[in-house]
């Protein structure tokens, strides 16, 4: 199939970017979206042009590296990552807009690559547990009710790709932070730092310049890991309780 691409090209984070028209010819329908970009890049390189820079790694839908917004929707028109999106979803002659994830906290580094280190800094602020290394006890010694284990597992499926931020009209990271907070708050191992964790992670999230959720639920619609927006309700509850306890000085 032949496609008309409108691709965001930007030299570096300080340069102005713009949409550039590029044609993609003879694309097999069984190619993934990233393979389509590989084919386009081969052609650009042959012609002596700069190839399109885009993020990718495992190409199995599990690492969360690939990004891109396709026709204004992060990861495009299917509930998967961009690497798991196949060209059969498109038709011959289609015009496809390819842009980087848009949010002030995710500055564009080059073309379709954005800097998602803000997520790492939020994780470093509290998305962990403190455990003594080298003396792990028997896993079965800590009993976790099935219901909590399921909720924690569901939230832990977050691959941190940032599609939630890209889809949110407010550039909010609350689905990501909600998933991380829910994951650990549901497990016994997460209890000692539960209060401090949510306060620190939300403070870092605000500091990074992410927006505020206004319940559009666009994030859960595009999330390739199917994280439900109820994790944001859980985040709000955890924060309200932790904030109230912190105000009156209860640990």
């Amino acid at each position, binding site marked *: 199939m032949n496609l008309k691409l*409108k691709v*965001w090209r930007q030299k570096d984070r300080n340069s102005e970017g713009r*949409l550039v028209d590029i044609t993609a010819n003879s694309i097999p329908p069984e190619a993934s979206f990233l393979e389509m970009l590989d084919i386009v890049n081969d052609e650009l390189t042959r012609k002596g042009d700069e190839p399109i820079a885009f993020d990718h790694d495992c190409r199995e839908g599990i690492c969360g590296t690939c990004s891109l*917004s396709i*026709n*204004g*929707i992060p990861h495009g028109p299917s509930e998967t990552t961009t690497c798991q999106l196949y060209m059969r979803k498109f038709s011959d002659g289609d015009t496809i*807009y390819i*842009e980087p994830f*848009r*949010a*002030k*906290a995710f500055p564009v580094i080059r073309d379709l690559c954005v800097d998602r280190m803000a997520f790492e800094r939020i994780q470093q602020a509290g998305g962990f547990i403190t455990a003594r290394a080298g003396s792990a006890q028997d896993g079965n010694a800590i009993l976790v009710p099935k219901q909590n284990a399921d909720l924690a597992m569901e939230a832990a499926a977050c691959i941190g790709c940032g599609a939630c931020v890209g*889809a*949110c*009209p*407010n*550039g*909010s990271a*609350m689905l990501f932070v909600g998933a991380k907070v829910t994951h650990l708050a549901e497990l016994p191992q997460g209890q000692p730092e539960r209060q401090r964790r949510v306060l620190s992670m*939300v*403070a870092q*999230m*605000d500091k990074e*310049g*992410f*927006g*505020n*959720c*206004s*319940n*559009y*639920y*666009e994030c859960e*619609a*595009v999330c390739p890991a199917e994280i*439900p*927006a*109820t994790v*944001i*309700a*859980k*985040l*709000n*509850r*955890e*924060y*309200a309780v932790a*904030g*109230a306890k*912190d*105000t009156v000085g209860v640990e």
Partner: protein
Amino acid sequence: MNSCCTFLRSSIGKKLLVAITGVILIAFVIGHLLGNLQFFAGPHVINEYGTKLRHLPFGGLWVVRIGMIAAVLLHIFTTLMLVKENRAAKGAGYQFKASVQAKVATRLMALSGIILLSYIVFHLLHFTTHTINSDYAHWMDGEDHDVYRMIVAGFSNKAVAIFYIVAMVLLAMHLSHGAASLFQTLGLRTKKMACRLGLCAQIFAWVICAGYVSIPVAVLTGFYDKKHIGNAETPSCCEAPATKGAK
């Protein structure tokens, strides 16, 4: 105190403020509707109710008025702060605009809110301070202020009635998003509730709208106590259509 300020200045703290003031405003909307619906019980019932409200113990009416103004101002001020942050956080946005599942009512929250605010100001000038028609203040039904006649006269003006109905439709849209959202913001939305919450909020919002709209519709269709309106003293500048059908 420092922790409290940090909490209220945070993204979630501000969202909680909007949700809590929203709960107060929803409680008022329900209470006000129940009061208004006494219009259908006849002139004396609603006029007596008006007098009771004016003579609530410990200046209750003023406590409610000041409380409501504070809630409205806090709701708007906090929302404006959030909107400003959100605009900055999104930056330039996409060249190709798309949306997957956001509802129209959700996207129009700011617009419905602004029009509702202008309506509230008009409504207060019209029926509370009587600035728009100062005659209303002198209409009496025995010992009571003639609220019934004021409502009929007010809604006999088609422009006022249409503005009221449009505002109530926007209120329904605002509530259909807000009533569901507050559960999410207060941390009460669970997966079990998620699918039904939106529908319940829609039903709640449109029932409230239907209740409010029923009054101007009743006046415009002549479904009111014409005898009461006919017996009332003719004011110096009455809104004539109200007395047309009187026998």
